[in-house]
């Protein structure tokens, strides 16, 4: 009797997966069914705890999982069928890989005895996902299922997060797992031991503090890693203690309140000139969790700008340190742990009454740099009869609440948003940074809304990007998900067109989307009608004074609302760094290559120059 009571019935592979997901509280799935994943879909059918969001494309499922992961800070889960379903996931996996988002993706696969036979809907996904995932698995035995899923979740979420892909043959989902405990309590990964913090890092941090405190013009460069490791409180505390200006990469928007007196804003090709100026003038750059990609460094030979500038690089991934720029002081550590340790050591120094505020004079420039940070309110229409994107950003800035989440697609509108919009909270700006995936925004906005149902989610899109995944209008209708969609429709693939204008003598090859304005306007598609086709409402705005009105209507709406803004056709996202140019050069709004020193005063480099500034008092940061 006793033995019988002890014995539980064996679970099928699908049931094991369901149990693992429930045990780990990952109960939201974004997916799309198909032949090889049917057993799993059957298993979760009607389940009260697991919530399946049926997307309209597997790529969207992947992006939605990423939006969910970024907004919530938790694991995003997506599922697809074998072959084409899984290959459709690849773009989303690559995007998550570049932006270090924790994603668990699993897809069906043909039965194990068919693998390698070129069976119907078979594709080698282990080979195909190798370069775009943190790790991948092919499960060939039901006994491995529990362990593989547990390992995959652990790998996806720890160290430098990233997507993990699992290939699940159909028979593995159907067969029983002949184990009483199909899910192991502990996992043991010999080859995986992310180094979050070490004693060596502690010593390096001490050196880093010394360097920063001796520096005349130190700058903190915050990257996406600060957001991923939830180190924003520590970052703000450190900035308040050290009084150092902070610039951020596009992935780090919101890690420090943009209204903080030391926050200068986004850096890089389309960043704020003052941020680029601060880095090119800096003698010590304290970089935290960033990759130094070409978009934020400009010309690598001239980076960061000053000939003797030192770079301190904190990153949890040792492979990122020294990959693109030579680093003077490497610190392999998690951003949160490293910053906490920095603060701790600073407090000790303060206790010993060592002066840690040596940079008082630096403040005068920061204040200067912070001025004129507003968004131009251009009430007039452009020469082409469209609304200026700046006007849309101006109104968005007014309607945006601190907890609102702003998601963008990729292109000019993304750069306008990154350049102008201000964020007070982390994880409120979601965008495709590394891979630059058009079509990312809409599904990611869906994921974000599901993660944060009480936040207003705004999607800023271009007419090009939105069409890459506009079918998700069906998803938001079906699942009653509310996303306020703002389409800046200029009838062009705006960013490419801008480059063609600036660098290819205005030869608009393949960028005209066939939008005819004024008079008998032709719209392909008519976005308002498109929304209506999905049972949603939309509104077209061609008067700059009505932008706010439309935004308010969208906000008040109970379901997804599409605003199509007739945007000035040939407006450019300027200023920008000229491609291949150094951080201290820029393409001005007038379209000329200029030096950053045409806009900002050079900083004094001798002690005598500094005398005048020593009397400046440090205002206390809020």
């Amino acid at each position, binding site marked *: 009797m006793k033995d019988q009571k002890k014995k539980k019935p064996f679970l099928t592979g699908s049931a094991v997966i369901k149990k693992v997901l429930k045990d780990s509280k990952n109960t939201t799935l974004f997916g799309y069914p198909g032949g090889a994943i049917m057993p799993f879909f059957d298993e979760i059918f009607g389940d009260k705890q697991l919530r399946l969001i049926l997307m309209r494309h597997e790529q969207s499922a992947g992006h939605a999982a990423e939006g969910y992961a970024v907004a919530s800070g938790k694991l995003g889960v997506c599922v697809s069928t074998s072959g084409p379903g899984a290959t459709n996931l690849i773009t989303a996996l690559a995007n998550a890989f570049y932006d270090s988002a924790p994603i668990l993706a699993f897809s069906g696969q043909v039965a194990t005895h068919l693998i390698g036979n070129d069976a119907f809907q078979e594709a080698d996904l*282990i*080979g195909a996902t*190798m*370069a775009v995932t*943190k*790790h991948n698995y*092919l499960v060939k035995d039901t006994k491995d299922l529990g362990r593989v899923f547990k390992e995959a979740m652990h*790998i996806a979420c720890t160290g430098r997060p990233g997507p993990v892909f699992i290939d699940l043959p159909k028979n593995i989902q159907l067969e029983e797992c002949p184990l009483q405990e199909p899910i192991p309590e502990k996992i043991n*990964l*010999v*080859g*995986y031991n992310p180094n979050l913090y070490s004693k060596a890092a502690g010593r390096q941090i001490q050196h880093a503090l010394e360097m920063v405190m001796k520096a005349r013009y130190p700058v903190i460069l915050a990257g996406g890693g600060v957001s991923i490791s939830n180190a924003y409180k520590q970052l703000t505390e450190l900035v308040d203690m050290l009084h150092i200006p902070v610039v951020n990469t596009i992935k780090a928007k919101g890690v420090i309140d943009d209204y903080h007196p030391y926050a200068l804003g986004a850096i890089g090709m389309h960043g704020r000139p003052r941020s680029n100026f601060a880095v090119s003038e800096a003698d010590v750059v304290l970089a935290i969790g960033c990759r130094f990609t070409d978009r934020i460094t400009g010309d690598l030979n001239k980076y960061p700008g000053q000939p003797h500038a030192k770079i301190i690089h904190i990153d949890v*991934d*040792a*492979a990122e340190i*020294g*990959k693109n720029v030579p680093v003077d002081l490497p610190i392999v550590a998690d951003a949160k742990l490293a910053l906490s340790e920095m603060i701790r050591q600073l407090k000790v120094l303060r206790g010993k009454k060592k002066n840690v505020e040596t940079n008082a004079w630096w403040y005068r420039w920061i204040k200067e740099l912070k001025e004129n940070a507003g968004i131009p309110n251009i009430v007039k229409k452009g020469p082409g009869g469209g609304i200026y994107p700046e006007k849309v950003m101006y109104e968005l800035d007014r309607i945006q609440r601190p907890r609102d989440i702003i998601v963008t697609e990729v292109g000019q509108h993304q750069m306008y948003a990154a350049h102008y919009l201000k964020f007070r909270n982390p994880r409120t700006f979601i965008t495709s940074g590394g891979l630059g995936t058009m079509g990312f925004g809409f599904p990611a906005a869906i994921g974000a809304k599901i993660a944060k149902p009480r936040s207003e989610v705004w999607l800023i899109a271009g007419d090009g990007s939105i069409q890459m995944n506009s079918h998700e209008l069906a998803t938001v209708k079906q699942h009653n998900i509310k996303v306020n969609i703002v389409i800046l429709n200029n009838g062009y693939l705006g960013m490419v067109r801008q480059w063609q204008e600036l660098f290819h003598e205005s030869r608009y090859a393949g960028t005209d989307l066939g939008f005819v304005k004024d008079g008998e306007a032709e719209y392909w598609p008519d976005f308002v009608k498109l929304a209506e086709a999905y049972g949603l409402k939309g509104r077209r705005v061609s008067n700059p004074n009505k932008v706010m009105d439309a935004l308010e209507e969208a906000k008040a709406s109970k379901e997804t609302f599409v605003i199509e803004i007739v945007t000035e056709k040939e407006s450019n996202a300027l200023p920008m760094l000229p491609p291949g140019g150094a951080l201290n050069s820029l393409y001005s709004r007038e379209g000329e290559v200029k030096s950053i020193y045409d806009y900002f005063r050079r900083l004094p480099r001798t002690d005598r120059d500094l005398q005048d500034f020593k009397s400046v008092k440090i205002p206390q940061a809020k």
Partner: protein
Amino acid sequence: MAKSPKVPEFLVTLLVEDHPGVTMKIAGMFARRGINLTSFTGAASEKKGFSRIIMKAEGDSKVFEQIYKQMNKLIEVVKVKILQPEYATMRELALVKVSIRDEKDRQTVMSLNDIFRNRVIDITTKTMTLEIVGSSDKIDSFVGLLSERVNVRELARSGTIALYRGDDSIFLD
């Protein structure tokens, strides 16, 4: 005769979990970053379920630092070390099949063989198969000398394998 390498080479030794696809992941990492592998050897190690892979690649210190770090990131890779040639014992095995036209050819091959202390492992009236063990340079120089005198039909090289000199070693506790 031994050619002096123009591009610096380095040896990477790995201890990896032994399951399908691991080799592909490792080789893929080199391919993706445009690094040329000049030698790749992998087989069982002293521990069950783990293989030892030894690779030789071309590149400067920046390249091998990057490779070292990227290898460390692969989950299946348990240990990675860059071996400096001066701290390593290295061997390579080669099998060479040469055509023998007449007695003079046979004499030439035999005398060269004696100098290099190689073994003859197969012989027919038309061919001889030789086994050479030693450093890659030794094999280069032997094959070079041989091909100047007789027709080398086929050459198979194992690629370099290496261990640390002295008490140091790379193993799993």
